[in-house]
Each structure stands twice: as structure tokens, then as C-alpha cells.
């Protein structure tokens, strides 16, 4: 297998102060390239019959999910297990949170076990910072409110790079409910950081005012998709149609105007979606199931990228991880 230690020596160094992954805004392009290269180095390990690496043996990763999640929580759990870390997964329902415990107290309680990493998903922006402030663990943001979902953006970059061999110079159209999407915010930043051009496409009520300052273009016309190399479809949440929250006159009109259909795509374009999909709403089932869709690749990328994130945060720690890898390589 690839010697991670050797790969690492060729990578840009991790700044010593970087202990958490909370926002793409905290990363440099060097950071992103290092993480993607590390993820690539894990690919071969996953092709072996024995998929487990001893790299994070003796380390503890806590997955703390206050919102429901299938792909992100399972992806983090498997990533930690592939690296031989001990994993503890906690869901908000059925926990002390139901008894009115504050996030601070939950974090202090879990922090008392001395976990190396806390992966947190929470409905509110800033929850990961709060956990970082009250524990000594490395904190990975697995989604905070409408703010950030940095590992999603990294796996999206990874997927695009695997497909196109580059990110620089590509044009990505992000389609749909940008207003409520943490994926969109992380992706805009990550793509801009890596030199891609981003156009947001959707109804005016779902494109937040002022977002062009992040370095993207805006179009309310679905025809703008045609120029893109990648069409990134966002999930259209049904609750946005509820009374008092009616961002659209109807789901039907949304689909008619902004649904991604085969007719609206041109050959050679690739389609991505962070999941879970609403087939027949934001994405036509024919698009979702087509060869051009990279949706399953995104899920696979998620595993190696999250392994890379855990590895990157922990290999500057006190345990002799390099030695463990060397032992494995030997």
C-alpha cells in the first residue's frame, strides 16, 4: 500500500495552530490539497481485503449528532473504524438532551472521557465552536445550521477532481435552495478557494441577498446550467413551502421552473447532489440514475475524505502515529 508517511512528507505542512475543522473559511488552498492528497492515499487501502489501518489505534472519536443523518454519521463512523479508532456515536434523541441538558453540559460530559475528536452536527450555527471552547478535543463540524458542512465540500472537491483531474478553471452551477443550505455555503467557499467558477441558480426568494460577495455569480434562470461543467443540485426542503415560510408559490412551480431534467442538461455535464434526494422535485429520476451523475461517487469519496480529516487532525498529536503507519507499511 501507499506509505502515508512518505506521502505526508510531500504534502504542504499543517499549520500548528489548526486543531479543528469547523469552516472552509479557516482553510488555505494548501490545507485543501493536503487533505485531498491524504484521501487519495487511503484509496488503495480500501481496495484490500483487510480494509483496516492501525493508524488511529487507541484514539477515541465521538460522533455527536443532534440532527438526523444517515450518510454523514455512517461515513464518519466507518472512517474512524477503518483507522482503528474507538468510536462512540451519540444521537440527540434518547440522550440527556431530551431531559433539557444544554450543549455545553453535554460537551463537558463527553469531554470528560478525553476523546481525541468530537464530530458534531447541530441545528444551530456556532455549536462546533462552543464544543471546541469547552473541551480539549479536536472538533469536526458535520453540519451546523445553515452555516457550514466542510467535510461535504471537501468530498465534493475530491469527487470533482477524481472525475475531471482538476478543479481550477471548472464552472460549477449550484441549483436550488441556497438560502437554507450549509452545503452550498461550504461548496462556494471551497470551489472559489480552488479556482473554480461558481454560479448560483434558483428562485430569488431562495438566493440570499449579498451572497455574491462570496465570489459567485447569480442567475434566476435555469438556462444558466448549460454553461456549467458540473451541475450541483441542492435538496429542496418541503418545509419551505409551509404557511408563513412560503418561499415558493408551490413545489410544482419550483419543479417546473428549476427542476434539473435531462432536457436542461447538455452532454458532458456531470451532476452532483449531497443527498438525500427528492426525486421528481429538484432532480428528475432520469438525471439521478444517469451515467453522468456522480452521486454514488460522492458517498464513496466521503469515506476517504473523512479518514483524511481525522488523520490530518490527529497526526500532529502526542501519539506516535507515524510509527504506527510505518509498522503497518513494514
Amino acid at each position: 500500500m501507499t506509505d502515508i508517511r512518505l506521502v505526508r512528507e510531500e504534502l504542504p505542512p499543517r499549520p500548528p495552530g489548526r486543531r479543528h475543522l469547523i469552516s472552509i473559511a479557516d482553510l488555505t488552498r494548501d490545507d485543501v490539497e493536503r487533505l485531498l492528497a491524504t484521501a487519495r492515499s487511503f484509496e488503495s487501502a480500501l481496495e484490500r481485503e483487510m480494509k483496516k489501518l492501525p493508524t488511529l489505534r487507541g484514539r477515541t472519536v465521538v460522533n455527536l449528532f443532534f440532527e438526523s443523518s444517515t450518510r454523514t454519521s455512517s461515513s464518519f463512523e466507518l472512517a474512524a473504524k477503518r483507522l482503528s479508532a474507538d468510536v462512540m456515536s451519540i444521537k440527540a434523541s434518547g440522550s440527556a438532551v431530551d431531559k433539557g441538558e444544554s450543549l455545553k453540559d453535554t460537551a463537558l460530559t463527553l469531554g470528560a472521557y478525553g476523546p481525541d475528536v468530537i464530530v458534531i452536527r447541530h441545528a444551530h450555527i456556532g455549536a462546533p465552536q462552543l464544543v471546541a471552547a469547552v473541551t480539549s478535543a479536536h472538533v469536526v463540524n458535520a453540519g451546523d445550521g445553515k452555516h457550514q458542512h466542510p467535510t461535504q465540500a471537501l468530498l465534493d472537491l475530491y469527487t470533482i477532481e477524481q472525475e475531471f483531474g482538476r478543479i481550477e478553471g471548472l464552472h460549477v452551477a449550484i441549483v436550488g435552495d441556497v438560502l437554507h443550505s450549509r452545503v452550498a455555503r461550504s461548496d462556494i467557499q471551497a470551489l472559489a478557494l480552488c479556482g473554480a467558477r461558481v454560479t448560483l441558480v434558483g428562485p430569488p426568494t431562495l438566493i440570499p441577498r449579498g451572497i455574491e460577495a462570496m465570489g459567485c455569480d447569480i442567475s434566476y434562470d435555469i438556462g444558466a446550467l448549460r454553461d456549467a461543467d458540473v451541475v450541483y443540485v441542492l435538496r429542496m426542503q418541503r418545509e419551505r413551502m409551509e404557511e408563513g415560510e412560503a418561499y415558493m408559490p408551490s413545489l410544482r412551480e419550483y419543479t417546473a421552473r428549476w427542476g434539473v431534467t435531462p432536457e436542461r442538461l447538455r452532454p458532458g455535464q456531470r451532476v452532483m447532489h449531497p443527498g438525500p434526494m427528492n426525486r421528481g422535485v429538484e432532480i428528475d429520476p432520469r438525471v439521478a440514475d444517469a451515467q453522468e451523475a456522480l452521486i454514488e461517487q460522492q458517498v464513496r469519496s466521503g469515506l476517504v475524505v473523512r479518514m483524511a480529516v481525522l488523520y490530518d487532525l490527529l497526526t500532529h498529536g502526542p501519539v506516535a502515529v507515524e510509527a504506527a503507519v510505518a509498522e503497518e507499511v513494514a
Partner: protein
Amino acid sequence: MAVLHFREGRPEDLVLRGARVLDPVSGIDAKLSVRVDQGVITQLGESVQPNGHQIVEADGLVLAPAFVDPHVHLRTPGREDEESIATGTAAAAAGGYCAILAMPNTEPVVDSAAVLGALVERASQEANVPVGFLAAISKGQEGRELTEMADLAAAGAAGFTDDGRPVVSAGLMRRALQYHSLTGRRIAVHCEEPTLSRGGHMHEGPVSAELGFGGYPSVAESLMVGRDLAIAAYEGQPLHLMHLSASESVELLQHAQAAGVRATGEATPHHLCLTDEAVRSLDPNVKMNPPLRAEQDRAALVDGLRTGVVSAVATDHAPHARHEKEVPFEEAPFGVTGLETAFSALYTHLVEPGLVSLETLLERMSAGPARAYGLEPPRIAVGARANLVLLDSRADWRVTEDGFRSRSSNSWLLGRTLSGRVRLTVAAGRVVHEA
């Protein structure tokens, strides 16, 4: 009945020697000494006889009329764990204030003479500086029925407001402006159009778009400012606009004033010093209503303060229990404390960089807010009750949690070093703070 209530004490005999006396109301800016007998200024001159009085050597310091804060949340009754009349007025004394106005959005709301009477009674026992209590415009601040304004005024209300909430109904706002004229007190409004601000946690703009927070657009404020100014103009009544945050609001106020409307406006230290960029820290101590806005809004407020369109600095001192602010930004309540830091924050951010003169700042922190509520402006003159603040513009100090007299410490300035320090406060003839 008087509108300011406090614990009476022994009035002071005092001589303050050699300060730069700066009183924009009396038009004084000179190195003078001031003698206070029995809490009243009796002599003002280059040399005054000490007559055995306690002497305060004030060489190199600025002596000004003490400050008036038109916007304080004392959290009493109901949330005495966050602030009490005693701790809130101690904080006011430390901030250089000789009078503060307390908001009625308590538990219960100050909407009856009975609730107000109990507060007046308590203030007469524990208020370190004079406090005026504003009563609600509508019963329960629910925006449906007017409070008994005439009775409330007779029981000592200093004015009327539904602060914390807007008066949503234009019809009720009009009735309030008509009816309150009986009382001789002012109406003050919190301008917010709730269907535009709903779900908003910060100013709507590029920063909220990037961070993903629900936006609270400036038009949610300015729309209501425009509406209320139009009603005040139509009724020919005065109106005070609280905690302005948007440039459009300042512009509307300026036009109304030019057209002869007796409207006044206040701005807070945090809106004058910070912008929505501060929210990138995700610190719940920069979450307030109205929210911190864009640089152009801040600049318009500073300009308004300089020209006098915005004639009052108001702290909107809003204490919160620590556990309520130790949560993610979106879960945190709106509001920050400000009584103990207002002068220093504004001295550091506005006077030192040359944006506003010290004289103007002193006027907007004292006479400006007093006039907005029809109160006598504090001044330094023979025969006037001593309401004085002694300021050290050369002193630096660090804002720390254990330095607060307030029962809460949700300050946006925690950990910062500020210039300008209050050395002495004399309120209603008594020394209430020395540092």
C-alpha cells in the same frame, strides 16, 4: 409626582479642584474649581474656598455634567438574578450616570399603577442613582389595548414604551400618541416590522449570507420609523425613536425634524462602534435587537450623533444570565450590557480617532437624552443640584468579568482595553462612585 426615584442620602460637601470643566449646556470649557454645599453647586471659579470640605484634586481631569441613560433594562421585577435596582444603579454610577430610565418589559410588565408603585417604592430604598420607570404603551405589551396612561403618569411613570416589541398596529400607535399628550410624558418606540424581521438573528447582508443566519433587514426598522414619524407628524406629537441602527432610519428622522416634527433619536455604543462583521466571531455577546449593521449604517449613526439628528446615546443595557448566553448564537437571547463601558467605548472608538468631539459626546450622553424625555438637563452652574462626572481621558483599563457592578457580564467588550475612565460620579448631590 416626580419621575426620578432614588434612595435619599446625606447630600455632599465637596470641592473639586482644578479640573477642565466642560459643560456644553452652560457653554463652559475652562480650568475651574467647583464647590458643592449640601449637594448643590455653590461656587464655580478659578479658586474656591474649601471651607473644610473634602477636596478632590482633579488636575488633568475633565469635569462634566453626569450622564443620563434613556434606555436600561433593570430586569426587575421578575429576573432579579440578572439585575436588580441596586446592582443596575451601581453599574450606572460606575458608568458616570446621574439618572437612568428603566424599560417596562419585565415579568410582569409595568402596565399598571400597582406594578409601577412597587418599583417606585423599591427604588426609594435601593436606587444608587435616580431611576425613572417607563410604563408600557399597551397592556401586557401585547399591542391591543392602551394602558391607563394618566394613572401611570400620576403614579410616577417617566414615559411610555413597549420596548422589546414594536407597536404593530398603526391604529393603536395613533391612539397612544393622541392619548399620552394628557400626561406630559413622552412616547418612545422600538421600530421593527415583525413580518420582515421574523427568523432574523443578524443584519441581512453579505455576512449573514455567508454565515447562513436568518437576516433581519434594515428595512424592517426603517419602515416602522417612517410609519411612526408619519403618525407623529399627523398628530403633531413628539416621539422618541429608540436604538436606531439603519442609515435609512437616520435619514427619515432628519427629514422629519427638518419638517418640524418633534422627533428625537438615540443610538447605542455597540451600534456606533461595531458592524455586522463582528458577528463572524459567533459570540452571543454581539447579538442584539436591532442587530449590528453595515459600515454605512454605522457611519450614518456617527454622523447623526455629530450633527445632533441623533441627540442621545442610550446603552440599551440588557443583562442576561450567563447560562443563557453560553449557547450557540441562534439560541442566545438578544442584548448586551453597557452602563459601565459606554463612555469609555465611545471615547475610544469615536473621540480618540477624531470622529466626534469630546464636547459633543458629553452633550449626547447627558443633555441630549434628558431633553428627549423632557427632563431637566444636568448642568454645571451655581444653584444647580450637583450631577457631575469626573473623567480621566489618559487612563487605560481592561474590561473584565469581575470588574462589573452589574449582576450580569454579557458585554461585547470583555477582554478589551479601553481609554477614558470614570473617576467620580456625583448624582443628585451624592458621591455614588469613586475609582
